[in-house]
């Protein structure tokens, strides 16, 4: 479904990605790990069109997407969350999810201005359903900035699910959470996000990655240094070497 | 052809004044990442203090110069404390908005201090124009040019050969890193502002002493010239500021000569607009830097 071939990118002399190859099939759950700065987020940024590759290609369902704009790529069925958490702080929780529906097919300019009552009801009901799914229905009228961090991450998840994406990219979905919160988040992802779609999860929390992912890909300095089943990869000498001395390896 | 070269000469001399103004904007932008829109009016108020001394007390030219610079610095301090230091670092827009609120305020103060349309300003020099072949070098712009170049050399020395200058450059590059290295950011910003205000005061003085008159529109005029010159050369680049100033001076002089007074300012703005659309990085900047999407956070 997603095919990354020989992908390379640099930022003014710093090689962020070097000749990366990756294949993700429908319903694959792939973990992406590596020390800070190894290019994980850059890869997501490139898949979603924020950066155009210096070399290499990205194909989604046999369609070249490396030249497309982000807003076009999203409509193809790819959704993501952000490492630094991006939500509309000054909007309510339910509005944060509601606004993700804007670019769904069927929402033309007319709808943007004056939505038909039954469409509006249906859309709002969908928002409620998603909030219920992630457990935020009680906080629907709070401003997003007033939520706790774990709740904000759930909000991001709900928002990413609005378009029922076929490929979901999660960038440190448990970032900043305590072990207990991480466990809850992992369960939520497993129950709500994973079913029916492919997923790439970037994380530093190995227990979570092992529990959720069928396959792990390890990056270091922009190159793939290992790929395979979690048990194998996490014992791989090169992987251990890459992490030695780094605090990235936590068993949360 | 002779006219063209004469215009270039005149333009470069006038442009040196613009270059100083652009340097002022550039340093503030580099250190604070914000535009100080009250820059022009603060220089104007400094000039008005000098004018007051000249008109009321028949002060000497040097006294007027010093008064102008001191006035500009004092007002600059007021602006810095109120608009930039007092507003927490995150709220960049609020700072800029604050600076235009103060801009309004200062314009009105100026109108109150000196209500007439125009006032005389002492002449920079009484020398006769120099003649080099078929070209005339009027003495006032020439003196302005010489002083401006000297001042640019001073600024360069300060920025590249003093510890203060190093601190300024460090803060411009990366404020958080600078703070970790023990640089006192607030102090650096304060003194950089003071330096910039002084440069502005000198530039304002030079320009006015060349024109020998000052009007209440001077504040706005300074802001525009400085901004245009800075953007022409490339925002954030000091050599760009200088180049931009000179280019602006030449473009103005040429259009004044060939198209007439009405088109002089119009050409300057048109050039600015064109540069922004075609090459926002300015003459010295990159064509269009890769969009820093990751850092695209609002206030």
């Amino acid at each position, binding site marked *: 479904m997603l095919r990354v071939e020989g992908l390379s990118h640099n930022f003014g002399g710093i090689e962020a990605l070097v000749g990366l190859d990756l294949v993700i099939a429908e319903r694959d759950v792939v973990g992406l790990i590596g020390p800070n700065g190894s290019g994980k987020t850059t890869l997501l940024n490139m898949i979603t069109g924020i950066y155009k590759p210096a070399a290499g290609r990205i194909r989604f369902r046999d369609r070249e997407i490396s030249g497309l704009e*982000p807003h076009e790529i999203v409509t193809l069925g790819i959704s993501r969350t952000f490492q630094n958490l*991006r939500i509309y702080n000054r*909007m309510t929780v339910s509005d944060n999810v509601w606004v993700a529906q804007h670019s769904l097919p069927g929402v033309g300019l007319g709808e*943007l201005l004056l939505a038909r009552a039954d469409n509006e009801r249906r859309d709002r009901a969908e928002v409620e359903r998603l909030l219920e799914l992630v457990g935020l229905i009680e906080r629907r009228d709070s401003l997003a900035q007033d939520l706790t961090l774990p709740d904000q991450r759930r909000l991001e998840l709900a928002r990413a699910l609005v378009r029922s994406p076929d490929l979901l990219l999660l960038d440190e979905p448990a970032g900043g959470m305590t072990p207990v919160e991480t466990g809850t988040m992992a369960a939520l992802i497993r129950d709500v996000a994973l079913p029916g779609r492919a997923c790439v999860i970037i994380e530093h929390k190995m227990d979570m990655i092992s529990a959720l992912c069928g396959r792990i890909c390890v990056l270091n300095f922009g190159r793939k240094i290992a790929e395979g089943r979690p048990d194998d990869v996490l014992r791989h000498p090169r992987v251990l070497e890459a992490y030695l001395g780094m605090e990235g390896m936590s068993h949360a | 052809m002779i006219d063209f070269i004469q215009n270039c000469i005149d333009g470069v001399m006038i442009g040196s004044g613009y270059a100083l103004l652009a340097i002022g904007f550039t340093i503030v932008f580099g250190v604070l990442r914000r535009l100080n829109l009250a820059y022009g009016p603060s220089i104007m108020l400094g000039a008005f203090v000098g004018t007051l001394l000249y008109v009321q007390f028949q002060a000497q030219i040097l006294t007027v110069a010093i008064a102008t610079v001191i006035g500009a610095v004092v007002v600059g301090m007021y602006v810095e404390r109120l608009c930039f230091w007092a507003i927490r670092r995150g709220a960049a827009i609020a700072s800029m*908005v604050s600076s235009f*609120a103060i801009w309004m305020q200062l314009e009105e103060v100026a109108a109150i201090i000196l209500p007439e349309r125009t006032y005389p300003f002492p002449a920079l020099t009484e020398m006769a124009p120099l003649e080099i072949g078929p070209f005339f070098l009027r003495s006032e712009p020439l003196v302005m040019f010489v002083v401006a170049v000297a001042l640019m050399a001073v600024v360069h020395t300060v920025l590249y050969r003093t510890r203060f200058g190093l601190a300024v450059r460090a803060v411009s590059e990366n404020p958080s890193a600078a703070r970790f290295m023990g640089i006192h950011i607030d102090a650096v910003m304060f003194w950089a502002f003071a330096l910039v205000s002084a440069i502005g005061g000198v530039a304002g003085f030079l320009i006015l002493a060349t024109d020998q008159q000052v009007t209440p529109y001077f504040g*706005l005029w300074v802001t525009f010239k400085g901004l245009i010159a800075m953007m022409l050369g490339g925002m954030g680049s000091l050599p760009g500021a200088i180049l931009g100033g000179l280019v602006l001076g030449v473009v103005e002089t040429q259009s004044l000569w060939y198209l007439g007074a009405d088109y002089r300012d119009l050409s300057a703005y048109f050039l*600015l607009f064109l540069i922004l659309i075609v090459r926002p990085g300015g003459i010295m900047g990159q064509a269009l830097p890769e969009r820093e999407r990751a850092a*695209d956070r609002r206030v």
Partner: protein
Amino acid sequence: MDDYVVSVLSNIGMISFLALSAYLLLLTGEISFGQQAFFAIGAYLSAIATAMWGWPLWSALLLAAAAAAAAATVIGILTLRLRGLYFSIATLAFAEMVRLLFVIFHYQVVIDGEPVGPDGAEGFRDIRWVFENNVSAAEYMVIIYVVLFIVVALFFRLERSRLGSIFRMLGEDTLLAEMQGLNVIRFKVLASGIAGFIAGIGGAFYAHFTTYLEPQIFNVMLGVHGLLYGLIGGLGTALGPLIGVGLDIGFLEAIRAIQGYRMIVFGGLVAVLLIFMPRGILDEERVHWIRMTWRRWRNAAR
């Protein structure tokens, strides 16, 4: 109602259009120093239509606003792909170009033996539609406020619609908006066009109120004022910029003691206010709080 009050209220009404115009762009995260250019286009074109071509006010108003909107759309397409600060300066450059173009713009026709029309820096006199049609000052004020009311009502509708939320999304987090499938430039250009239309209406009213136009009126200061009103009144609601206008032209004007010092006081007030309320008096959080409190109060009352 005495003439002075009518005059002040009319001023508030007309400048509110300019403030709303700047506000709409501010919502999308863009600071435009150039809305006064569209105000000017609205003023001049509507005046030309009524004073020189004999058009009635309504058609002149629509023509002028449409022209302003078209100009705003074109400028938007050219400039909105620039990053924030560059965009702001481009709008400044554009507005000054417009002003200077009006300085060299001469177009006159002879009516009843007298030349009528914009005459560059000399100005454009005798925009007499109001007198020729026996509209009193008070009646004119009412017309301004009726149209203003309609525009504000439309803004309120916009806030509840998807389009309104799109504008706000652009202002809060452009990258995120893009990640949700929105073509950022297209929507910003749309906002620019609408903002131009609103400014054009204001300008048209202004021309027929003062009956005299000159390029100097439409300077950067006017544009900066427009921006300040929204930023100090608050960006949470369309009432924000109106509060800003009311504060400056209404409240401060009323204080006789500070007659000649209004800008000093207003400028200082804005600077101080921004230290404590960087997003204005009625910012999004306050508006949200008001909305929630109102809802709770209403539910409790049942």
